[in-house]
């Protein structure tokens, strides 16, 4: 089908672009920044590791750029990202794979909650657009949406963890004693609560505003007026007619919004020292660990692309015009 | 100075009935989609129309018949896929440099359907009307202002001072369309392509716009290609009427004849479908199914065959030729090609 093939091609082009950027950027910069990094770690890394880094970043390598590139693509596709300098002698893949579950668990869950919450609130506030609660919610979400996530994280960390002491200041689980089973799950949830709340509270505003705008547009569409003329109950009009159509643009803009939220989530992890990908990125930046940085960037990009692809596929089920072709 | 220009223009075409423009085998195709989904829309499929001096030819058809595309190709908003456009006996090349194109535009102008979108909302009436004078370097400085006033007044927007600094949103639909007409008139063209100029206007002012166009024809020696879906309006305006269906010309002839004795089954259908309270209050019934054919997959025979009550097997074989049924009256239908007609 045309739509699916288009999405697949786009997925591949974008993934390839991200890979290629990763390859070109260090080579493009004046005095290949990787050189600085390698010089800095000279003596702390064994010569083999240095050699591997040199190959990865094209320093002192007498291969043509094309061969370097093919070699690089091969390594990336098979997941051989090289050795992490800051976590030497661990491989990048190993370091990364330890961080991924934390991020996906925390971030995935809170994003889904924020999306659902924002969408539902968006529907409700636009349907009752003149009620007092809507007139509070809109400026509030504008504020939340234009606030730096990390700052909000800092504030609630200060208030709820430091001042009130209700929650841990950071980390993902309790390190005291050997907790197992349910207790450890409880501890994980306990630690996840503040960072999760940060993401939910700040991200919800964005989804809410998007959904509200879409709803306002759809509510003035003729088919909604017609549904009223048909004497359908308000709830049916609100959901089956208005919201059902208003949600479609939310899906098409999903990738961008997701990118925005993920950026916020990375910073949130840093504030809470949450051992996920964002915190890892921070550490790799501090330690100028380029191989790790590259791998993280690739991982995030591919993750967003995949999420986006899934959303595109869901969209097929939601919009018959895409599913069946024809129309505009 | 202005009078001189004017005189030279009229000298080029002296005799009445001289042909101003001939459109020959005009074809326009649009390519849509890309790669595996590329398709060709056959919007105009080889039509021939000539328009004489001070003549109004009505081009009638339903949506998708290609009538607007004809106007836009002749107006050089689109390049023709093939076919010839001959202006004052000279063929217009497919590609023109700016000078040639400007020269062409000086002779051929256009009035658009929607007076609400055909005027730039951010430009005043005066600016809109000054532009053609400036672009074509017709008059300079003060003369331009005078000419703009003259144009407004010719088009029934008097006193001109009241209108010259207004923005489109301050004008009614009829007033806007008058500005549109004045803009087309500015360069003193020979031919004006009028693309449904009254269909978006209120009924009570349609006639005045049509009357204005007819008056201007006499006053400024203009020919019109008057495009419409309304048979009655075409009848009111035109000397000759051409009927289009699915990108083909199916009938052309003197207006009274085409209306009162339509030959092509499609023209007959259009006539029946048009409201005409004057002919008694009992409406005529029509009985026809089907829809206008898909322009990306046109039938090879007569395009009207699938819906035609008189369809014969041979209609499907090839596109019928244009046959002469009386002086200046031609029909593209097999009913008239085989001696069935006297």
């Amino acid at each position, binding site marked *: 089908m045309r739509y699916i093939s288009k999405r697949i091609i786009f997925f591949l082009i974008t993934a390839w672009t991200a890979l290629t950027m990763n390859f070109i950027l260090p080579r493009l910069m004046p005095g290949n920044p990787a050189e600085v990094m390698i010089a800095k770690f000279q003596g702390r890394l064994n010569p083999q590791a240095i050699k591997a880094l040199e190959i990865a970043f094209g320093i002192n390598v007498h291969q043509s750029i094309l061969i370097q590139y093919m070699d690089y693509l091969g390594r990336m596709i098979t997941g051989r990202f090289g050795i992490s300098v800051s976590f030497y002698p661990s491989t990048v893949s190993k370091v990364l794979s330890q961080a991924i579950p934390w991020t996906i668990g925390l971030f995935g869950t809170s994003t889904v909650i924020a999306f659902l919450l924002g969408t539902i609130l968006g529907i409700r506030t636009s349907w009752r657009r003149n009620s007092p609660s809507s007139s509070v919610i809109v400026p509030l979400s504008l504020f939340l949406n234009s606030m730096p996530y990390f700052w909000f994280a800092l504030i609630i960390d200060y208030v709820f963890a430091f001042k009130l002491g209700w929650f841990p200041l950071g980390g993902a689980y309790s390190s005291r004693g050997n907790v197992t089973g349910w207790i450890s799950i409880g501890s994980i949830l306990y630690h996840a609560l503040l960072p999760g709340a940060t993401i939910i509270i700040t991200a919800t505003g964005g989804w809410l505003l998007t959904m509200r705008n879409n709803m306002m547009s759809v509510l003035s569409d003729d088919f909604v007026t017609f549904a009223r*003329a048909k004497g359908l109950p308000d709830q049916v009009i609100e959901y089956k007619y208005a919201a059902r159509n208003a949600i479609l643009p939310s899906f098409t803009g999903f990738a961008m919004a997701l990118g925005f939220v993920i950026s916020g989530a990375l910073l949130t992890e840093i504030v809470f020292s949450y051992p996920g990908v964002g915190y890892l990125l921070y550490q790799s930046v501090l330690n100028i660990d380029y191989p790790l940085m590259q791998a993280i960037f690739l991982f995030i990009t591919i993750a967003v692309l995949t999420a986006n692809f899934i959303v595109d596929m869901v969209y097929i089920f939601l919009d018959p015009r895409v599913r069946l072709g024809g129309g505009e | 100075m202005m009078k001189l220009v004017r005189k030279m223009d009229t000298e080029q075409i002296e005799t009445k009935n001289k042909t101003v423009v001939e459109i020959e085998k005009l074809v326009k195709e649009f390519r849509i989609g890309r790669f595996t989904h590329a398709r060709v829309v056959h919007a105009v499929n080889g039509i021939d129309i000539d328009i004489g001096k001070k003549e109004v030819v009505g081009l009638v058809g339903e949506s998708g018949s290609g009538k607007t595309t004809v106007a836009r190709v002749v107006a050089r908003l689109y390049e023709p896929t093939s076919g010839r456009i001959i202006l004052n006996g000279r063929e217009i090349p497919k590609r023109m440099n700016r000078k040639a194109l400007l020269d062409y535009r000086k002779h051929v102008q256009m009035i658009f359907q929607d007076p609400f979108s055909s005027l730039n909302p951010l430009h005043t009436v005066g600016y809109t009307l000054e532009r053609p004078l400036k672009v074509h370097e017709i008059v300079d400085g003060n003369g331009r202002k005078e000419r703009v006033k003259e144009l407004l007044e010719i088009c029934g927007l008097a006193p001109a001072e009241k209108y010259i600094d207004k923005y489109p949103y301050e004008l009614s639909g009829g007033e806007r369309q008058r500005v549109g007409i004045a803009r087309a008139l500015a360069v003193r063209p020979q031919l004006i392509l009028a693309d449904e100029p009254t269909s978006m206007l209120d*009924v009570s002012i349609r006639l*005045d716009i049509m*009357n204005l166009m007819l008056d201007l024809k006499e006053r400024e020696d203009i020919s019109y290609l008057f495009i419409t879906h309304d048979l*009655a309006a075409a009848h009111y305006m035109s000397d000759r009427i051409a009927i289009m269906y699915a990108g083909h010309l199916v009938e052309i002839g003197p207006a009274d004849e085409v209306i*009162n004795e339509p030959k092509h089954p499609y023209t007959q259908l259009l006539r029946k479908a048009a*409201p005409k309270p004057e002919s008694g209050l009992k*409406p005529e019934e029509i009985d026809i199914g089907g*829809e206008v054919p898909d322009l990306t997959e046109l039938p090879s025979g007569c395009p009207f065959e699938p819906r035609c009550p008189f369809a014969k097997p041979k209609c499907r074989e090839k596109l019928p030729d244009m046959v002469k049924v009386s002086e200046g009256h031609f029909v593209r239908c097999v009913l008239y090609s085989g001696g069935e007609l006297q």
Partner: protein
Amino acid sequence: MKTLLRVEKFNAGYTLKHTIVHAVRDVSFELKEREFLGIAGESGCGKSTLAFGLTRMLLPPGKVFSGKVEFDGKDLLNMNDEELRKIRWKDFSIVFQASMNVLNPVMKVKDQILDAITYHTSDYNGRLEKRARDLLALVNVSEKYLNAYPHQLSGGMKQRVVIAMALALNPKMIIMDEPTTALDVVVQKKILQEIDELRKKFGFSIIFITHDLSLLVEISDTIAIMYAGSIVEKAPSNVLYRHSLHPYTYGLMNSFPPLVGKKKRLHGIAGRPPDLSHEIKGCPFYERCPKRIKGVCDRVKPELVEIEPNHTVACHLYDEAGEKDGYRANRDEE
């Protein structure tokens, strides 16, 4: 015939920030059972506001200011929302102007027909599918389109589906707001024929709103002409066509070039209608009227008076203020 709808002194419009647009002004009329009433008027004359207002479909900033609407013995304007919802579509339905966009793009045609039924009655339970098929058959749409989505239908088919939906619960009245304006002449004609047949078959009343007077003359029983928010003349179609009294109606009738017959020069009506956000003193047509009486028409608003049975007109030429013989006024022209 029994009166089905009675509208009295109906006023509606739009309250904007700085102005109030008084779009419908003191409109009164009656619709009988089985009657086909055409309401004709030009853009901005308030005809759509009237249709939306009297069915309480106007949304803010639109508002009904005052008046009375009695439909089938029920007071439409003072019903609560739930009561109103229940009779909508069941007792009267509306076919909209922009039928291209009135269908929900993500729902199948069938489901959109059925939800109108199921939220109003359980009469068809068990044979809903059949009901939907029958309805499409009434308007000559193949039943294979039941499972289609709106974007798969042509403009004419969409309009037919909407008409089928309007018939779903056998309403007593259908309001049609420019139902065929966006369609091609041939399709328009065909659909009008179908509407007429259906009306004869089921006996509902129609209020048909359009700017195209020439259409109405052929199809409706009665025609009301609206100008600047008011009804200026109302009469049976043939009477209105042959003996229109109001100078506006007369001008409008002569604004359509006849299709057949000899060509002759006709004239439209110069000028434009008054701004409805201002108060109008006297006759709203005064500025454009060729027969205006200075000192009378610009001072006193003419009331609708019945000149002969079923023929009413609001013009000083025909009432005491004008002191003129109405029928002579037109014959002079002819």
